[in-house]
Every structure is written in C-alpha cells, then in structure tokens.
C-alpha cells in the first residue's frame, strides 16, 4: 500500500514537473524574523529561494500571486531535535546492537570501552531518511518546514541532519548532512555489560573522546610520514566521533545541567544541551556557560492513571508549575535557545506548548526565534534558513491570524518555494497524527 502510494506521488511529480516560475504573496503581514515586521508587504519566491521581500516589491509578471490580505507570513518553523524521517530500525530503540567494527559480530555483553558499546557514531541521519514517514507531513501541517533529525539509539547514537520536510527523494530534503553527534546517557540494561550505570556511561564518553583525540593525532602523524610507524588501527566509532565535532548532551534537570556544563568544558568541544526543563533553576550557570540549549516543549505534566492518594513531592509539583517559565527566563539571561517537540504525540500540541511558555512570559518574537533563526544559528545554517531574507531558502508559513493564536489557521506552507496546503481536518489533534495521506503537494494555484 505504502509502496503504491509513493509510486503514485512520484508519478504525480513527474507529470507536473514544471513548477510556476515564481510565487508572490502580496499585501500580507510579514514577520521576517530578521528585521522589523512588515505590516503590508510582499514576498516573492523563485527557484526555491526567497527572491524578494519588502513593502515595495515589484511582482514579476510571470509569478503566481497569492492575495495575502489578512494573512501573516512567517519563516518556516524548525524542530531542533527530532527523529522525523528516520524509520530505520538500526537507528531507533529496540533494534539489535550494532557491531563496533564492520563485519564483527554484535557483542551482546560489553566488557569495557574497547567494545565500543552502544555506539553508532558513524550513522548519519542524512542516510536514513525515509520520505514516506508520515510524521513529515503532519509536522508540515503545523507549520514546520525543517527539522534537525537524529539517530537516537545508544550513547553515541550518530550524526544529525538538517532536513526540509518535503521532497520526493530523501536527497532533495537534506540541507546539512552532518551537524553533530547525538549523545545520550543510557546504560546497557540488565546483563548487557559495560556501561551499566550513569557513571559508566559518562566514563565511557570520556574515554571515547580521549581515544578520538589520540586517534586524530596518530592518524595525522602517520599521514605526514608513514615510514617506520605501525599504521593506526581503523576505528569506525572514532571516525564517526571525529567527523561530528558538535555534540548534543542531555541536560534536563538542574543537576544534569550543571553536570553537563562541566562535562562539556572537559570534553572541549562545541556543545549543545538538550532537555532543559529545569533550566529556570540553573539560569546563572547557563548564562555563565554560554552554551546554546534546546528546550523540550513536552512540559512535564501529571501522569494519568495514577493513584490519587499518592501525593507527589513539592519538588515535582514545583517543576511542573515552573518548567514552562524556562524559555522566558533564559531569554532574559541572553541564553540562546531553540525548541524541540520530542515526546509530543499530537503535532497540534506543539504550538500549544509554545503558547504555554508565552503565558509564562516569553515574548512572541522570542518564541518565534526559538523555532526559526536560533536553531539555524545554533547548528550553523542561519545563512540559508531561519528568516525571511532575500536569497535564503524559500521556506515559509502563511497563516490567517497569528501563528500563536489559540487555533492557528495555517493556510500554506512553502518548502523550497513549493506550496503545500494542509488538508482539511489535519489541524484537529485527533486527525493529525492518524492520517496517512492527504494534503499533498499542490502545484497549481487557482
């Protein structure tokens, strides 16, 4: 069924291979994200890029024109940490433990760091993209045009990629093929050997970076002059680590935040922290550290189906009450933060979660930044994406009313200059996650 569908879509794409030479959205409110808001402006998309933006823009004669009156145009939203597009079993939890060395049998019980447990540092999200992942469309229907997507299995899970949330082939979707290494502090689980604890995981990561630095040095030494030296033994795990210098470290609770800040210093590599729901408790430390952070929008909530007589601790209640103040507090401190939606099942709940942070004091402008220009800056692709500027990739969201309104009405989504309209009822929470198809590419504007 799925196969048939993608064939159909493919056929469609071939038939209508000629897109309009340009699209202009006229008389719209334009939130550029880089300069002031244009109350009545025009954006022109051509050749997949933003060709022009401003209040007095001449619309090319051959462009399709969209009347933007009553609408707002935003830069396309970016989810800074997700697994969208990755359906490959090797990169998602529950799959068999991969071998550290190609060809070697998967070790079931790791005896130490030398077995490179829970490591697939060489895996690239860019190589794993599956265009049929239904989440691509449902995220798009909520205004997301890009995501940074990561293999998420193990300690050294692999390398993230910046992707656009539309494309016939996965290659079309890739914006940045490798943008860092995703690290998690997990253990092998019962009976799986080293590491079996948080302590063990941290010591393992430390050893890997010590090994990687040496590996780089001896490889260089050998490349400079191999004579008389034994060749360095090839190590796929270290290769993967070396080719992804930026690392993502998990830091949700205050204690994890301070712990990972010092760990980052020790590892001496560009670091992005993710989680951060207790960030409001570690403001000074975060400000002093100067690390960019990714905030999980899945705010902690009371678990359902629990014993009503089991009263949670004051600490838990306070975090639940205050977690959503983190973005506003970090904004005050000038800490660079982006949002991600890990764990939010219904895409429609993502913007709802952002609104919660806004109710806790986050300005609309800062909220938008956290889903547009800031993730682009953090991962180094702000020259291509993240704001509505001439020459950038043509990723836009057009809404009736504001995107942060309680019931945002997303009219059009543009990715690489191509227009996608959310299909009917994809915006109701129940339908968004469950729908298989619909809301496909529209090549024509009536």
């Amino acid at each position, binding site marked *: 069924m799925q196969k048939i569908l993608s064939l159909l879509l493919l056929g469609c794409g071939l038939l209508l291979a000629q897109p309009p030479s340009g699209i202009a959205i006229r008389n719209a409110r334009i939130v550029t994200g880089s300069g002031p808001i244009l109350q009545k402006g025009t954006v022109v998309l051509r050749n997949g890029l933003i060709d022009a933006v401003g209040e007095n823009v001449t619309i090319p004669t051959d462009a399709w024109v969209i009347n933007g009156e009553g609408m707002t145009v935003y830069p396309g939203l970016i989810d800074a940490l997700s697994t969208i597009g990755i359906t490959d079993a090797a990169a998602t939890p529950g799959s068999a433990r991969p071998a550290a060395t190609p060809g070697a049998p998967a070790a079931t019980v790791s005896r130490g760091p030398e077995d490179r447990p829970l490591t697939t540092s060489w895996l690239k999200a860019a190589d794993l993209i599956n265009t049929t992942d239904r989440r691509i469309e449902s995220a798009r229907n909520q205004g997301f045009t890009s995501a940074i997507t990561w293999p998420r299995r193990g300690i050294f899970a692999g390398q993230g990629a910046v992707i656009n949330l539309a494309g016939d082939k996965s290659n079309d979707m890739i914006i940045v093929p490798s943008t860092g290494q995703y690290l998690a502090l997990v253990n092998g689980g*019962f009976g799986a050997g080293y590491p079996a604890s948080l302590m063990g995981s941290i010591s393992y990561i430390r050893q890997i970076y010590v090994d990687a630095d040496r590996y780089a040095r001896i490889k260089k030494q050998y490349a400079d002059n191999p004579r008389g030296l034994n060749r360095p033994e090839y190590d796929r795990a270290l290769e993967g680590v070396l080719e992804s210098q930026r690392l993502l470290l998990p830091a949700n609770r205050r204690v994890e935040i301070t712990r990972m800040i010092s760990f980052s210093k020790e590892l001496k590599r560009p670091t992005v922290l993710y989680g951060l729901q207790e960030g409001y408790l570690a403001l000074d430390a975060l400000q002093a550290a100067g690390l960019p952070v990714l905030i999980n929008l899945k705010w902690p909530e009371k678990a359902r*189906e629990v014993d009503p007589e089991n*009263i949670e601790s004051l600490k838990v209640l306070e975090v639940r009450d205050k977690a959503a103040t983190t973005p506003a507090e970090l904004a005050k401190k000038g800490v660079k933060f982006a949002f991600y939606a890990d764990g939010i099942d219904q895409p429609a709940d993502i913007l709802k979660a952002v609104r919660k942070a806004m109710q806790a004091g986050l300005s609309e402008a800062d909220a938008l930044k956290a889903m547009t220009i800031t993730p682009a800056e953090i991962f180094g692709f702000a020259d291509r994406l993240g704001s509505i500027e001439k020459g950038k990739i043509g990723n836009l969201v057009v809404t009736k009313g504001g995107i942060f309104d309680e019931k945002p009405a997303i009219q059009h989504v543009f990715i690489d200059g191509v227009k996608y309209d959310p299909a009917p009822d994809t915006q109701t929470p129940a339908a968004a996650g469950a729908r298989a198809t619909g809301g496909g590419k529209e090549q024509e504007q009536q």
Partner: protein
Amino acid sequence: MKKFFVSFTLAASLAFAAANDTFLVRNITVHPVTGPKLDNASVLVVDGKISEVGAKVTAPKGVKIIEGKGLHIYPGMINSATEVGMSEIGSIRETSDTGELGEFNPQLRSSIAVNPSSEHIPVTRANGITAVITLPGGGSTENRGFAFGALNPVIVGQSALMHLDGWTWEEMELKRTAAIQMKFPTIQMLSPRAMMMDLPGAFPRNTFAEAKKSYDRRIQAMHEFFEQARRYQKGKESKQPGLRRDLKFEAMIPVLEGKTPLMIVATRNRTIRDAIEFGQKEKIKIILAGLEQLGDNAAKIKELNIPVILGETLTLPSSEDDPYDSTAALPGLLHKAGIKFAFGTFDTQFARNLPYQAATAVAYGLPYEEALKSVTINAAEIWGVADQIGSIEKGKWADLIITDGDPLETNTQIKQMFIKGKAVDLSSRHTKLFEKYMSRQ
C-alpha cells in the same frame, strides 16, 4: 488450647520450684513501671514469681540475696515484633523459616519454628529483652503481592509470644497464639512478575484502575475466606455430620470469636484505613502493625481502641516531603492521640536495639514513662498477658533486669537478667568472640 497452656505452666512451675528461682533483690531502685519508682527497695521472687515488692520486704530464711546498691531493677522488655529464632542469617534462605508459601495460612505456628539455640537469642537478651513476639510472615513490609514465588500471602500464620529462655520452644512459649498475622494487600502498580524479578521498568505498569481492581478483588477474597471460616465454625458448633476437620478454618475460630486478634501489617494511610474497615466488617479484634504514618486514621484507631505495634523509629521518612524527624515523632503523635502502642523491630538482627528505638521517640516528643511502658506493660496488655509479665508486681513472672541505669540508654549495662525467676546467662556468641580475640597477642 487454653487447657493445655494452663497445665503446661503448672508443670513448668513444679519443675522449677526447687531450682534457684527464689531470691531477694535488695537496696535497689525498683521501677515497677505500673507505679512510681521506689528507692532503696526490695523485690522478693519465690518460685519464679514476684512475691513482694516494697521498701520493707522480709525475706524467708535462707533465701539467696542479691545486693542491688546503686543499681536499678526493671521488668524485662518485650519486643512486639521479631523474627528471633526463626531466621539466623539474613541472606541465606535455608536459615529462615518465615514466609511460607500460600495465600491463607492461619494454621501455621511460628513458635514451633523457633530455634532455642539460635545465636540471636542470647544476643537479643543481653540488652534486656526477655520476651519477643515471633512473626510467621517476618518483616514489616506490606503485602507486595508476592513472596518467594508465592503470590498473595495474606494470612501468614500465628504470632507467638516467646520467652527468650528455655531448652525447647515449648519451654519458651508464653502464648502460642498471641495473634494471627495478616499482611494487608497493597495497590500494586507494578506487575508481580516485574517485582519478583526486581526489574521495574522492564515490564509494563498497571494502570491505577487495573491495580485498584485487583486490590479490591484480593480484599474480596479475604472476606470470602472469612465467610468460609464462619460457615465452618457454624458447622462445627452445630456438629454438622460429615464435616471434615480443616486446619485453616479451625485456626480462624478464635479470631472469629474475638479471642485472638488479627495482627494486620499495614504501613500507609490507605492500607491502614482499609485494614480497619476490614476488621470492622468482619467484626473481629485487630492489632495494627508496622505503621509508618497515621494518615487520617488517628481518630478511628482511638475510637475503636485498636492497639498498634510500631516499627523502627530510627528509619527514614517514607516520602521526600515528610519532616526529617517524622518517624521519630510518630510514637509521640500516637500517644497524643490516645492510642495504645508497643514497639517492635520486625527483624532479627536489630531486635536488641528495641530500647533505643523507644528512646529516640522520647527525644522527639514521647513522654519517657510511655516509652518505657511501650516496651513493657503496654506490650503485655496488647498481647493479653498483663497478668503474667510487663511490670514488677506481685504475682507476675519474675522477668527482671538489673541495670546500672536507664535501660533505654545505649550505654547502660544490663548486669543481670531473670526469666521466670531464673538467672539467665548474658554471654553470647559476641561476648565469647570478644574475649577470645581480645586475648590474642
């Protein structure tokens, strides 16, 4: 049963009458516990029983005299929840005889599994404890849904009150069935399978609704068991022809008759509440044991006059938000609420530390006299043996300790101990090893 007990004590007193269980302790500070302390007083023991207490006691001719100058005499202490004699080495299952398989086992008798030569007996005794309750189900933990592969142990057997002296368990028995021990079920969010393997997380959790349903079912099963026992009782009373003797139901009859209390281990608010409700519905006498909190049950416990056996005061608060001293303050709260209680340690290893548990409660609000009573007379009253032990009063067994000070203080030394008037050896595996290795050059 009762008949048996009476004839047994008779036989015992005859056997010991000629032995050295007649003596006078004089010039000692007597702490009868049930009355004010008497300075420079005497205690006369005849045939193992306290015969006279007071400032002026005339000793029969030739009686052995113990000089008590500068010392104190107290009733021996009672630890109201232990595994003493039933478990030797904690980690070795083979040395433990608590926790039988099966759901309803009221017929199991803990006293017959008490090993009179357990090393724990002299060790426990050395700190002034002369009698203990032995728990067939062990520990103070609630019913967590399984134990050693047996799901749902609920009624775990008969708790006995045992003297810590005797050649056989029979000689040690003060009361064979002091109570029937029940471990009240709890709401288990984890499946029993996950708990058994100690692998929380590896198995899906029950939803609260599911867990509550299974909890309710288990309570229903308990009621059904009681119902069956009642039918058996009626059948027996009416001499129903062909009624087969059933050990389980037979053991329940004294509970149904209100003669033997059901000692229900229930630690937290809901379980305590439900345990009380269970007892009310079944119209039986209950004792609550192992409480970690009072919850909202204080008034009810007081109203129904339910005695309580408290566990360790030296234990951690049960939740993060509890005041740091909540466990130590709990006995004081019970006292304020007018609830009668005694202390137990619910184990073997630390049974000897009973007095320090009581003393800690004093630091955090329990009046000293109450603390002392809770390890002596209150325990005797709760177990229905206040006519035999628990204070220094005429007619009671001479379960006595002579000390150089307050027996609830750690540094106090127990100088001598008498159980049923018989001087008990205070040496133990510990003192013997001490002497042996102190002498190593």
